[in-house]
């Protein structure tokens, strides 16, 4: 090749010399062929069993779009925001009542700014107004189903109720995590931990009204211990076990966010245990793929499966997995999309090469878009700037992205405003309209605080059908809470990107398949048969609660589900001793409005006792993986129900399972993460950790 000739990289790559293997390698490899040869499922193009599809709930709502989807509860109603948290109403909200030990203490919080919070508030209010006596809403706090399995639990304590209020006004105050948790041992500390440098606008106030957990005076949590400065998380509590006789219905909105998993991964990879507040169990569970197949026809496939759980002692406990998998929309049938990227180019994006990661992530996305899709770009540093009106010209887009450099301070509000203006102006009537915010969530300049940004987003979602996806980047200075709240309000999904690989997962695998929303206002209701199931506990989804009686209220703003999306919900249940071994243990219902026909549809699927695996070993692979992932998350979170949980045990089982999952990158990665977490946890004095 001569200098002027075009360098033929392809040829050079193809001709790269290959190193010959060492002579003894083949012998070693032969020796490692297992005694008992594995049985590949050769001819079958798809894995086999275990895949369940769904039922549970998920609603992904909002964003079916780009990245995601999420479930929006009625929480998004503005009026809900105004409702002051009311202690006396607490018993009406079923989620909050827990039994069991300190751990059993239930935490609930209401945050006008937070997404779930309002939901809870509103729901509570309505429940009070409408059905004060509805039993399903109020499991008697005093009928604690004690964990029969005494293994993990200590003596039951009186339920402790804790409230956390987040408002958009006062200066940032944080709950002192240490104080909170040590007094609520085993309980779930509520509160906002960490602060935002510079303040996110007006900031958040946290106040705890439990006997425990006095708010601290703010500042950054344990600056000396915190691996990253100013990381902002929020605790949402843990669901209790509920007696089926008291309440046989479990109703909630689905959530397909996965940000919590990636954030935790980032911590672990850097050699730190993630803070408890950073763990949202359902986001861990939904970060993995369980091989559930999309429906052959119809909008959704629902799957239900169960097996004995190794993490609950006692013969009667089962872990149940419901999965809802949305139909796949062929790329060529997808509606054209107008995507407006709002990219944070403030100084903080220079840290850790964040902006570079954003640029590469966007590059990945461009690869996958159709020629009819248009992309616009707004950036904000000290001020917002319109870089590119939505266009289909890929080169122009790529150039614009390439030229981004970090600058100035952060005026997130102006950036989002401008992004929404652009999206509204170039709105496609029949297409998909989405704003994608790429930021570390740090917002330090702007007239108004998060409250006004949230209102704006909410209005746009409602009136103009513009959805929002937030993608978080960076760790030091990272604001998990703001990013998640924004996505919640904006009918969108929140994801966190720590690596380009993650960006690929989000922007390529999930985003493109799911730009198109297939179902709106989707809710899940699981009904347990009291003659079979003694008690149940929903794992995760703490802030997606919907009042049982509102399941068929189609005005409830619930989740949107994107094409191809899969949502899993796990329950732990305890069977009745004398229960028959036939019949149905639970029925899951999925209710949603079809985007295509506009009609409300309700699907139903039974979990039959005959479908319950007789042992953990014989359980379907997806169920095993989901159970391990959930246990991992619960132990990291220090949940009461996983109080005696042991990462070493999770690790052993994950290793045993991992073989079957080695080609799935994320599952393979999980083993590594559990290992790290286990080592880190061991290295921390177990006692001090416990007290923490």
């Amino acid at each position, binding site marked *: *090749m*001569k*200098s002027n000739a075009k*360098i033929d*990289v*392809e*040829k*050079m*790559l*193809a001709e*790269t*010399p*290959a*190193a*010959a*293997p060492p002579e003894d*390698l*083949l012998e*070693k*490899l*032969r020796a*490692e*062929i297992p005694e008992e*040869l*594995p*049985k*590949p*499922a*050769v*001819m*079958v*193009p*798809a*894995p086999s069993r275990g895949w369940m599809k769904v039922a549970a709930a998920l609603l992904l709502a909002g964003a079916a779009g780009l990245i995601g989807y999420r479930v929006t509860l009625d929480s998004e109603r503005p009026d809900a925001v105004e409702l002051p948290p009311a202690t006396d109403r607490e018993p009406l909200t079923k989620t909050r009542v827990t039994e069991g030990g300190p751990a059993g203490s239930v935490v609930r919080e209401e945050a006008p700014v937070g997404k779930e919070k309002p939901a809870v508030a509103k729901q509570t209010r309505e429940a009070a107004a409408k059905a004060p006596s509805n039993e399903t809403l109020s499991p008697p706090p005093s009928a604690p189903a004690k964990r029969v399995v005494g293994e993990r639990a200590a003596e039951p304590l009186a339920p402790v109720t804790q409230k956390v209020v987040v408002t958009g006004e006062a200066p940032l105050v944080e709950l002192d995590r240490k104080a909170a948790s040590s007094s609520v041992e085993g309980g779930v500390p509520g509160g906002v931990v960490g602060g935002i440098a510079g303040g996110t606008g007006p900031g958040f106030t946290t106040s705890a009204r439990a006997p425990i957990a006095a708010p601290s005076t703010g500042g950054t949590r344990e600056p000396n211990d915190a691996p990253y400065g100013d990381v902002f998380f929020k605790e949402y509590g843990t669901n209790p076990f509920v007696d089926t006789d008291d309440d046989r219905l479990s109703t909630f909105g689905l959530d397909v966010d996965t940000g919590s998993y990636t954030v935790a*991964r*980032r911590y672990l*990879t850097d050699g730190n245990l993630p803070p408890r507040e950073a763990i949202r169990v359902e986001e861990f569970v939904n970060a993995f793929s369980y091989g559930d197949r999309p429906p052959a026809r119809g909008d959704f496939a629902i799957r239900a499966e169960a097996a004995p759980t190794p993490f609950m002692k006692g013969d009667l406990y089962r872990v149940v997995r419901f999965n809802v998998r949305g139909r796949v929309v062929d*790329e060529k049938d997808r509606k054209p999309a107008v995507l407006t990227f709002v990219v944070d180019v403030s100084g903080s994006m220079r840290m*850790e090469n*964040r902006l*570079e*990661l954003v640029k*590469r992530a966007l590059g990945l996305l461009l*690869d996958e878009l159709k020629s009819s899709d248009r992309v616009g770009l707004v950036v904000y540093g000290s001020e917002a700037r319109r870089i590119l009106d939505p266009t289909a010209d890929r080169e122009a887009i790529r150039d614009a992205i390439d030229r981004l450099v970090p600058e100035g301070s952060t005026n997130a509000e102006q950036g989002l405003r401008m992004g929404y203006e652009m999206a509204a102006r170039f709105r496609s009537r029949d297409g998909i309209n989405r704003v994608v915010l790429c930021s570390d969530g740090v917002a330090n300049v702007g007239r108004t605080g998060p409250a006004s940004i949230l209102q704006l987003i909410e209005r746009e979602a409602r009136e103009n059908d513009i959805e929002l996806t937030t993608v978080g980047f960076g760790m030091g200075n990272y604001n998990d809470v703001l990013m998640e709240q924004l996505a919640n309000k904006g009918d969108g999904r929140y994801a966190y990107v*720590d*690596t*380009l*690989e993650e960006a*690929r997962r989000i922007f*390529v*695998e999930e985003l493109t398949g799911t730009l198109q929303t297939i179902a709106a206002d989707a809710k899940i209701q699981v009904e347990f048969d009291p003659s079979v199931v003694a008690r149940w506990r929903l794992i995760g989804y703490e802030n997606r609660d919907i009042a049982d009686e509102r399941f068929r209220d189609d005005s409830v703003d619930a989740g949107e589900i994107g094409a191809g999306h899969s949502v899993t919900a796990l329950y732990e249940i305890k069977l009745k001793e004398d229960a028959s071994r036939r019949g149905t243990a639970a029925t899951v219902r999925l209710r949603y409005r079809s985007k295509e026909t506009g009609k409300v549809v309700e699907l139903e699927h039974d979990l039959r006792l005959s479908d319950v695996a007789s042992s953990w070993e014989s359980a379907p692979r997806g169920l095993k993986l989901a159970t391990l992932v959930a246990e991992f998350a619960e132990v990291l979170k220090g949940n009461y129900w996983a109080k005696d949980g042991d990462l070493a045990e999770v690790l052993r089982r994950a290793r045993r399972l*991992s*073989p079957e*999952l*080695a*080609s799935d*990158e994320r599952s*393979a*990665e999980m083993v*590594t993460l559990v290992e790290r977490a286990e080592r880190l946890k061991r290295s921390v004095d177990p006692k001090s950790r416990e007290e923490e």
Partner: protein
Amino acid sequence: MSTMPAAGEVVPVSYREGMPAQEQERAILERIRAGDRAAAETLVERTYATVFASLARLCGGDRDLAADLTQETYRKAWQALPGFDGRARFSTWLYRIAYNAFLNHARRPLRAVPFEGRDGPLSADPGQSAEEALESSEVSLRLGRAVLALPDDLRFSVTARFWAGQSVADIARQEGVSTVAIRKRLRRAFTTLEAALEGVVP
């Protein structure tokens, strides 16, 4: 592969025999399924050189490390085999496992930009034969280093395609994306690599 392998090169599995590679793989897997140990050995023999060679390049020429990772790859692959779903070819699937093993080893991989700024991963290796050493010219060093510095998705695509000899269609199936996306990635990788080689190529 776009070019036939030159003599003396390690031949990618797909070129070994007359029968279409995919069918051969399938036949071998069927025999393994039936408990045929010899088939298992055949599978290893046919695939390990490519796996090793790919890992050696990923490891910047560290042959000991590559040998360790090759062993690890097969350990994992045997365990994972029951879950192999035939979505992509076996060898593509195997390369994914090898690549994951490498990522797990490198483990900076969870970082945003794993390889950038890493100095000279491609130092000449004392274990190389004289002939190989000759070929490790400045250009191929630069090229190898540039490949390692690619963003992860591009790097996987490029190495799977050229170092492990997998087809674009199989890579796309394995990764669950469209072939168009893989082609675009390869093109973008070429652009980056060309820029990296600018001025070095005589």
